[in-house]
């Protein structure tokens, strides 16, 4: 099997989708000739032509709003928002439009569309480019939020997202685009939406993350095992909504402790929802409060200081230790 980066795995998924279904079109800023600023759509314009892979004018609401129309009329648009921070421009078209099509029309229409966006920090990008805003969409009924953290999931989840009959926000951890390679099957396999993955079994504390934070969580898990003889269970949520509550609750009922890790600012981040859920569903099992390792409650800093701002492995280790030792 070929070893691919997340970027390559995504490119394969998009190519497979374009081949499988003539209703699939890719649109966004610079996704055509340029192959996207992160080269995720590289080569697709050349292979499928300008009717399938479309450079749009520079207007995010336009990209998402026309996608809603395309989708209602039977196409399957896969829109790229160049950086997640620019998603603000599209909030009405996502939350009041795409997410409500099925509801508004009593199922007469649906909006089978995917909005892809690179997100997360650590790549020294300018202001607004690195923000983690997934919690805005986990609070938006009608849209699914999917966040892969490795090449295998990236390909399989993206194909499932494109198959989905309703809108899916697909968030790609840009720091991990080319950070490592994994074995990725050639064929167009699917990874189901709505299922978390227990990437490491353990008994002492459940570490929960998604997308970019999985890198820290996995490194912290190694350290906990190696240095502290602690056996963490590691859960990669993969899909934030609909949330796989069962996997989370089962794990915490076993370990009785949990730490949630995300890059987004702390207040009202998705970590708060996870903590609220755990204390509600596994209350009598808890030996320690659910702890959160997150970004600070400030705007994402200028990148000279992003490493100071971003949660890191040692913070995850510290949180896990305080949980275990509580």
């Amino acid at each position, binding site marked *: 099997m070929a070893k691919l980066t997340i970027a390559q795995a995504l490119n394969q998924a998009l190519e497979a989708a374009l081949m499988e279904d003539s209703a699939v079109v890719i649109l966004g800023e610079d996704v055509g000739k340029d192959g996207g600023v992160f080269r995720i759509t590289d080569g697709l314009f050349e292979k499928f032509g300008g009717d399938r892979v479309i450079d749009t004018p520079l207007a995010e609401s336009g990209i998402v709003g026309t996608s809603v*129309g395309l989708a209602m009329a039977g196409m399957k648009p896969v829109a790229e928002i160049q950086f997640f921070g620019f998603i603000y421009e599209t909030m009405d078209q996502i939350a009041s439009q795409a997410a409500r099509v099925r509801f508004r029309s009593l199922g007469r229409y649906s909006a089978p569309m995917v909005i892809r966006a690179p997100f997360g920090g650590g790549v020294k990008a300018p202001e607004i480019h690195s923000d983690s805003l997934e919690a805005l969409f986990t609070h938006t009924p009608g849209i699914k939020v999917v966040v892969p953290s490795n090449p295998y999931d990236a390909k399989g989840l993206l194909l499932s997202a494109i198959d989905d009959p309703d809108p899916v926000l697909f968030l790609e951890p840009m720091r991990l685009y080319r950070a490592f390679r994994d074995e990725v099957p050639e064929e167009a396999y699917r990874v189901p939406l709505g299922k978390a993955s227990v990437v490491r079994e353990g008994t002492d504390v459940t570490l929960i993350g998604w997308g970019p934070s999985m890198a820290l969580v996995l490194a912290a898990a190694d350290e906990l095992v190696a240095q502290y003889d602690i056996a963490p269970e590691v859960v990669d949520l993969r899909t934030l909504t609909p949330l796989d509550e069962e996997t989370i609750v089962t794990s915490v009922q076993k370990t009785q402790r949990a730490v949630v890790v995300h890059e987004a600012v702390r207040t009202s981040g998705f970590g708060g929802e996870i903590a609220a859920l755990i204390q509600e569903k596994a209350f009598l099992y808890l030996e320690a409060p659910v702890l959160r390792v997150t970004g600070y409650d400030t705007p994402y800093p200028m990148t000279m200081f992003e490493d100071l701002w971003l949660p890191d492995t040692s913070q995850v280790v510290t949180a896990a230790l305080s949980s275990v030792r509580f």
Partner: protein
Amino acid sequence: MTDGMEMFPLIQRLDEEGNLIGDLGVLSLADLKETYATMRFLRTFDERAWNLQRQGVIGTYAPFKGQEAAQMGAVAALEDTDWLVPTYRDWAASYLRGVPLEHGLFFSKGHPSLGDIPVGKRVLPAQVVIAAQTLHGVGVAWATKLRHEKVATVVTFGDGATSQGDFHEAMNFASVLAVPLIFFCENNQWAISVPLARQMHAETIAQRSIAYGIEGFRVDGNDYVAVANLMHELSERVRNGEGPFLVEALTYRLGAHTTADDPGKYRAIEEEDLWIRRDPLVRLERWLRAQGQLSDEDLAAIDADSERKVEEIIAGFREALDI
């Protein structure tokens, strides 16, 4: 600076006195008789809905009184395979495309059936967010183009909607992508309490087409003959790949913005009077009478028929909701 009025002279075929300027174009006398009956029925419905709200039977209703010719003309040229992407005041237009008029009542009642467009009818549910549907119109038209279907899409919106960023993005996308779409603006000159002159500084909405390098048209929206003919021409042209186009239909909201609104607070009675004289129904009636095609008896029959149909609709509505 450009004089929008000069660049986009008002297209008119039937003036407010009921005089035909030129000919009927693609329309026939029979068409106009039918149109008149339908318009009168729609007017009856609209006024009746207003009263239902006053009686507390339904909630907030947005009347289309005064805009019947614009809405009817907007869809006059559409085929079964064509699309309509309407806004929240377009019950008349949607009705002609196969959406029951009850939907206007469902809307005012906050009933979900409002969104239940009959299967096979190519109409989107009424849009509440101003201008959001303009982008959906672009997407729908683009989908038909990508599939090489020979169909036209009409997206409707108010004058106020042209201030929104989405309207601009829609016009720009549509023109760059050359989609088979007609942007149809019902310029009723008010966005709730804000008159057009505070909504924009340009003289006409039609001139906004220039910003996108497409053709724009300004038509008397209270003149069904003019609107219907223009839309016949343009929908044929968009089906042939010549779109998109922008149409400004100059009309007037004779009623309040909604039943929750009091126009007395912000607009002059003289203005309302002026536009009562320009009523789309009146000029059609005058012309038909002048042609000897409308007698008092005909009118009584149309009214009776309208009343009956409206009663039926309301009965069905009450039954559906059990009220």
